[in-house]
């Protein structure tokens, strides 16, 4: 029973990170129709930047918080540059070109990370204030978990509020549904795309920093992350935020309990879930059928 | 009712909460030229999509020569003998006109899994003949994307005819054309339909075009058929006039909403 509870909590933590990561991915696709395969690279970059920030502010008790605040913003700023200089030129063009441009970003940023940080794994320290564990049902969990879950919930609620309760958000959702409507509604499409891309990379950055104390920040962590992210948004439905929530939780649990069953092959369960969902509903559980 | 080629029974299509097509009962006879008119959003194109299997009906049935084709996918419906053109011309932009038609013939002749024979040499006579029929023999070698709008419409007609259909569904064949460009196309359509003995169903907004070719008109509004009959009767119908914003259904120009 203990293992189950442990796995449940651990699954929720996974789900929280997955949600932050996948929500950005699905948002970008929903609005710009671009599949940002480099999403994982922004996630990874945030981890490395967080590492450096915590090194630089090593003596401060707030080093983690500084990193948490700053790294995603820096990543988002970089994303903004990328969007304006590069992505803008391939909107609406051949899918192959869009995909390969994001692949180019993966290559370039990957090697730049190697250039600045080298090949060794980095460790981002837990926030001093949240060290230690709390007791629940006789089991001990790192207090840090509450930060992760709490942040995911808070950001999730903020996004829900923004998208469903504000005028801007409603317009954005309309834009996702019907592309022609954006100009009719007076939305500057270019600005919309930029904002969405920047926000989505910020989300990836948040996921990256929050995840970093629990795993080693290392080159190559971008691809497994983005593949998992793909699995989440495929199951949840491309462009659907509620789908991302539901699916992240589902995936978190599938992964968590899959590891108990076949440690090496937890991935298989994830894929099996993807396959089953796609057979039954080819546009994901909460997505919209195209065409 | 031997003579009925296309028949729908209480055909409905819902998109979420919106009923786009509402209990439509259509009966089109052999070699009839039927026009479907109505304001935007009346469900005309959705009706075409249902007839050709592009959308699955929410309820109701579709019969083609007394075969139930309700559940068939588009490629099966096409094979049965129903061809279609689209409001926004749907051709192969990166092929020449010749290659466009050739591809359509290859499809009809079921030569599409042939992996060996070079396609360029196949069915050249028939392709040429079809291009002549639509007046494109001089443009055969031109890339479809460089053809004029009117010529692209002709090309699309050729594609639809390549399958030797019995029923031709035309979705706004003169859409996007200047007034003086329309008569040749209309004449071509009418001639082709007559020569080949086709049954035609045409969605159109231009009343001039409608009244010049249609034998019978179906008027749709908000998914329902609100009137059906011969052109003169439709022109005089009060409900139809009301639907077109209270004005008369003029023959001189385009109807409102078009």
């Amino acid at each position: 029973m203990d293992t189950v509870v442990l796995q449940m909590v651990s699954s929720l933590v996974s789900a929280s990170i997955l949600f932050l990561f996948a929500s950005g991915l699905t948002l970008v696709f929903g609005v710009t129709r671009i599949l940002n395969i480099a999403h994982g690279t922004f996630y990874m970059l945030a981890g490395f930047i967080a590492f450096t920030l915590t090194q630089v502010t090593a003596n401060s008790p707030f080093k983690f918080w500084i990193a948490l605040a700053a790294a995603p913003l820096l990543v988002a700023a970089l994303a903004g540059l990328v969007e304006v200089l590069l992505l803008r030129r391939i909107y609406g063009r051949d899918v192959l070109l869009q995909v390969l441009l994001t692949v180019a970003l993966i290559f370039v940023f990957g090697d730049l990370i190697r250039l600045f940080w080298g090949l060794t794994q980095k460790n981002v320290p837990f926030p001093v204030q949240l060290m230690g564990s709390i007791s629940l049902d006789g089991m001990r969990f790192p207090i840090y978990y509450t930060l992760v879950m709490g942040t995911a919930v808070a950001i999730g609620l903020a996004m829900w509020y923004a998208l469903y309760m504000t005028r801007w958000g409603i317009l954005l959702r309309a834009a996702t549904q019907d592309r022609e409507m954006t100009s009719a509604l007076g939305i500057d499409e270019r600005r919309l795309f930029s904002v969405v891309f920047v926000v989505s990379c910020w989300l990836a950055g948040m996921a990256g920093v929050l995840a970093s104390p629990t795993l080693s920040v290392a080159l190559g962590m971008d691809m497994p992350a983005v593949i998992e992210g793909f699995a989440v948004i495929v199951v949840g439905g491309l462009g659907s935020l509620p789908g991302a929530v539901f699916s992240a939780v589902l995936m978190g649990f599938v992964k968590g309990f899959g590891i108990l069953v076949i440690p090496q092959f937890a991935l298989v369960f994830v894929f099996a879930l993807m396959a089953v969902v796609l057979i039954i509903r080819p546009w994901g559980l909460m997505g919209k059928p195209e065409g | 009712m031997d003579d009925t080629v296309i028949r729908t029974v209480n055909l409905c299509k819902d998109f979420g909460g919106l009923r786009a097509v509402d209990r439509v009962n259509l009966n089109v006879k052999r070699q009839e030229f039927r026009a479907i008119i109505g304001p935007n959003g009346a469900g005309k194109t959705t009706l075409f999509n249902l007839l050709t299997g592009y959308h699955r009906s929410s309820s109701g049935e579709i019969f083609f020569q007394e075969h139930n084709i309700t559940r068939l996918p588009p490629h099966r419906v096409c094979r049965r003998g129903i061809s279609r053109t689209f409001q926004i011309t749907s051709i192969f932009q990166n092929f020449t006109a010749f290659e466009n038609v050739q591809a359509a013939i290859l499809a009809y002749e079921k030569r599409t899994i042939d992996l060996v024979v070079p396609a360029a040499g196949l069915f050249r006579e028939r392709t040429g003949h079809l291009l002549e029929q639509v007046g494109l023999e001089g443009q055969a070698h031109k890339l479809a994307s460089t053809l004029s709008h009117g010529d692209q419409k002709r090309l699309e007609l050729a594609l639809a005819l390549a399958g030797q259909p019995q029923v031709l569904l035309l979705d706004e064949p003169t859409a996007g054309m200047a007034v003086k460009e329309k008569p040749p196309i209309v004449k071509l359509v009418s001639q082709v339909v007559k020569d080949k003995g086709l049954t035609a169903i045409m969605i159109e907004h231009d009343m001039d075009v409608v009244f010049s070719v249609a034998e019978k008109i179906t008027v749709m509004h908000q998914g329902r058929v609100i009137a059906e009959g011969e052109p003169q009767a439709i022109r005089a119908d009060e409900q139809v006039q009301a639907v077109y914003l209270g004005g008369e259904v003029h023959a001189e120009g385009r109807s409102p909403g078009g």
Partner: protein
Amino acid sequence: MYSLRGWNPLAEASRRWFTLAAGVAVLALAVPWFQPGPYLLYAIDILIFILFAVSLNLLVGQTGMVSFGHAAYFAIGAYCAGILVVTAGWSMPWAFLAGPPVAAFAAFLVGLFCVRLTHAYFIMLTLAFAELIHAVVWKWREVTGGDDGLLGVQTMPPFDTPLGYYYLTLVSVTICLILLYSISRSPFGRICRAIKDNPRRVEFMGINVARHKLMAFVIAGFFAGVAGDLFVFFNRGAFQGIANWLTSAQGLVMVILGGPNYFAGPVVGAIVFKLLDSAVPKFTEYWLLVLGLILGATVLLMPNGIVGFLWGRRASRDGHG
């Protein structure tokens, strides 16, 4: 009589192209005498990846299916043949023949899932399946050797020498390229290109688009399997890296570098990529950085690839297009 003149990148090969092809063929046959030793091995590697890239382009450039998991079928071909030799004791020719059909079957299974999906889902799913296959290849130590790789794949005379293997590869790849070329010119190839251009219209011409896409996927997988076969006997083994996303991505890079709209595109792309692959590391250890910049530049500035760029210039020079 209707002729196919006018700017059309897929038009009949002119005499110029035949001469070029003949020249290339002569050079290829003569390579062993001009460039013995390591360059011969290098040429074999290039030939293998030419086949890999051309098979991928059947999907990408011809049918408009951006597959991000092509390496999986390459790897399946390689590992299948290799395992048959190492574990089951098959001799090279039989193992060689077994690889591609198994790869094609795997492509069939994956394709069943994937071909009906729209672009984004297709990319993600082909990547996901490839990662699954990659994971299997990597973790199933007992069968595939896991991290250490599959070793000890025996070839047989006369193919156990570089010269012998070079001719085997040259002949195999040439035959496969001829087959793939003939497919691209066939009615099936035309329909594939039509599917890329306007799948809805193809559907409304009475063609089951999904079935044709599946066929293309399987054929592409088959030839990737052949390339994998050639790889495993060349290297006397295989390693898990050949199934990873990077290998698939490299295939796509080769396609775009050369030009997806031309049969010769991926051929040129594979050669250029491999040349860069060996030359760049001599100047810098940041090969991916350079590759990324080149890839980005190609996407933004030369999206039709090298062949597209050259052909376009010739077309305007000759007064066409």
